[in-house]
């Protein structure tokens, strides 16, 4: 049974008329045309579909869109302020922390949420914070370095 579901998407109101049991991932990708959020495994174990829901990193493949009603959803497309990239995005570029790039949007959003919670994470905290994110190209060491750089940049920005 379809329902009209409304939520805030990257700062703007989004409204869809759909089955509330459908996953947020496919609603974002097919109904709303935001394909930066990737399908990786469909069961919340690879992190490629990660978005921010009310600031929390969330696997959108496992979230029924009905449960996003009224929430504030940020996808990778909404992270930069126009042409100004977010410090986490810049740090991933600086460290070349991506190869094929398929895991990158989810990885960046999870790292962004982590740094909001823990602005100065240790390498161990970064590894724990990014648990469940797979990068098959093996950029692990660089991802950790990028998150540390982003942390410094964000702290510098706050001073």
């Amino acid at each position, binding site marked *: 049974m379809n329902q009209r579901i409304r939520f805030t998407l990257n700062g703007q109101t989004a409204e869809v008329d759909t089955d509330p049991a459908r996953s947020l991932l496919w609603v974002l990708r097919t109904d709303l045309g935001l394909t930066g959020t990737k*399908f990786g495994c469909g*069961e919340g174990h690879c992190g490629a579909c990660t978005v921010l829901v009310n600031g929390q990193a969330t696997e959108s493949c496992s979230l029924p869109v009905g449960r996003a009603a009224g929430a504030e959803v940020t996808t990778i*497309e909404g992270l930069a302020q126009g042409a100004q*990239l977010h410090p986490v*995005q810049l740090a991933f570029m600086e460290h070349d922390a991506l190869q*094929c*790039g398929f895991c990158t949007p989810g990885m960046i959003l999870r790292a962004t949420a982590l740094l909001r919670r823990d602005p100065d994470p240790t390498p161990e905290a970064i590894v724990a914070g990014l648990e469940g994110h797979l990068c098959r190209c*093996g950029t692990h060491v660089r991802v950790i370095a990028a998150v540390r750089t982003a942390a410094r940049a964000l702290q510098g920005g706050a001073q």
Partner: protein
Amino acid sequence: MNHHEAVLHVRGEARFVDDEPTPAGTLHAAVVTSPTAHGRLLGIDAGEAERLPGVRAILTCRDVPGKNQVGTIIPDEPLLAEAAVHYLGQPVALVVADSDAQARRAARAVHVPVEPLPPEFDARAANARGELIFPQRTFARGDVDSAWAACAVVVAGRAETGAQEHVYLETQGAVAIPGEGGTLRLLSATQAPTAVQRVVAGVLGVPMHRVEVEVRRLGGGFGGKEDQATPWAGLAALGAWCTGRPVKLVLRRQEDMRWTGKRHPYSSDFRIGLDRDGRILAYEVFFYQNAGATADLSPAILERTLFHATNAYFIPHVRATAASCRTNLPSNTAFRGFGGPQAMFVLEAAIARAAAEMGLEPAEIQRRNLLREGEEFPYGMRMASSALTRCWTEAETRYDLPAIRRRAAEFNDAHRLEKQGVAVMPVCFGISFTNTVLNQAGALVHVHTDGSVSVSTGAVEMGQGTAPKLRQVAAATLGIDPERVRIDSTSTSRVASTSPTAASTGPDMNGHATRLAGEAILARLREVAARRLAVADAATIGIRAGQVHVLGRPAGFSWAELVGAAYAERVSLSAHAHYATPRIHFDKATGRGEPFAYHACGVAIVEATVDVLRGECRIDAVRVVHDAGHSIDPLVDRGQVEGGLLQGIGWMTMEEVLHLPSGGVATDTLTTYKVPDLYAAPDEVEVHFLEPGGEPAGIMGAKAVGEPPLMYGIGAFFAVHAAIRAARPGTDTHFVAPLSAERILAALSEPS
């Protein structure tokens, strides 16, 4: 990675096949597969499925207008099953529907009755029954049978490596879009656009010029999309052809893990003989390759296994035989290293057993037998450089191997429940397709009238960094800033008859083709510049940093002005070039020749800690000296080394494909199939590039770097093996990879 490409990725704007906007009216396809590993197909009951909402077509082999065939090396693989099914998950029918959900629902409602036949999953058993994909092959040198008598030590054993699932994060997929006049355009997540074009044309029964295949980028390939992207593209094409509408087919993760091939499991028997000083005199090995149900790329993979049977060592008397065994599993396929890693593992197992027998460190035997410049591989080619021995010496001294060993020994003295092990892993990998015909590439370079440049080649970008390297090659050839150069998507209409982007050859072959096309344009531009600047000899003209130079001095004439002048003079600003790797040849009958343009090599020192109670292992450090020649892009190359070795560590220590008794894949999700996550990354990864020594190399003096580093991961197995032996001296671990926690515990608890 170049800046523009990276920006697309970090903003989520980089498009993969499933991200491309599709035309209105695009239909969705889902695949009906065999529920049984082996049997006679008794029919396809689609009555119920046809009545479901949204269903537009249910297609079987009878709907294929051309050849129902996707096999490339051997035509033994139907697109859709005919009378028999040969593995669980074999495509039997295609459902096309308005939505993805409707297609999948209907696919589940198609019944496939099968009269079961006994399945075979074991390679050795298949071999015993004569079930080979093609006759077994042998590479030999010297007189191995007589050599045993001269050996002071002879040991034998068995070594096994398991399958490895690719887990490219982007699953297999394609979109087929019918055009006017019986044409078809395909967006395919393939490493081999021309193979897709050829197979689709065959399936549809049309000339290849009616099929265009385009690839922008892949979300990882690792070999898994070299041959096995083709069936899904073929099915999407069939759906589009039969319905007249665009059709998208993208596999879900579980479908991909159940239906597609993996790295071949190998079970091998070895025998090795050494003299008193640890010099290897003789080596005999028999590889049983589990090919799965069809040939796929198995013949070529098996051949590379034989080429790399002696890896980085000189062995005077060798006999390596390999059998490609037909089983009722999804056909196994290319995976980074392409049969080489399986071969190298067996020899390292043989060395480890010999070392234990002789009371030596395995590294002593490795070092004493390392291939030196001028020594011959069993296939007749000579080692052209000292790069390998230099890598070994550099690794030993730079990372202070004796100190590493000392630290491990001290740790082991101080700890009872944790033990450390150290292993050294040398790698020597031949660069070129072993099938000589594939060693050719094309490039199309356009200089546009504003001075910007676009380059099309046969190379597919999948994260390995070929595109940024090609960009540098084009810019260096033309003497302009790389910012002016754009690498276009790979399209069979722009560059035809391409080889797959595989065998680590992408930058070399496509780079040379790009260089040749650039040089052709440059020669014309020199003539234009000579006329404009009234210089008699065009050869004195060069372009550097976007400025025309005469005899090395700036002439006050910019690249953009020169391009404008050439256009005004009606001089062509485009060129296509073809490159064929020179010299290489191989005689399959004698097993001798010069099959590789060069060898890429390196040495890794791996340190591991084993938790003796839990059986868990941790790879603490991997320290590498790698020979990348004159690296075009050290950041990219370093990434290839880091990523490759991590995949190798995964293959050796944690990734395990298990099957159900039915032949279905039990490890068909990312909860049951573990690939290295951030926790699994070694605490320390050091990569040092060897100072180039002027040996043969690829484009711009660089060496291929895609595959060789994977084999450093083999060192992880033997570091863990050493840790187990530290915990239980005298334990002779079975050489079965992956060395999972279960296997480590089993080894630790075996009665000694």
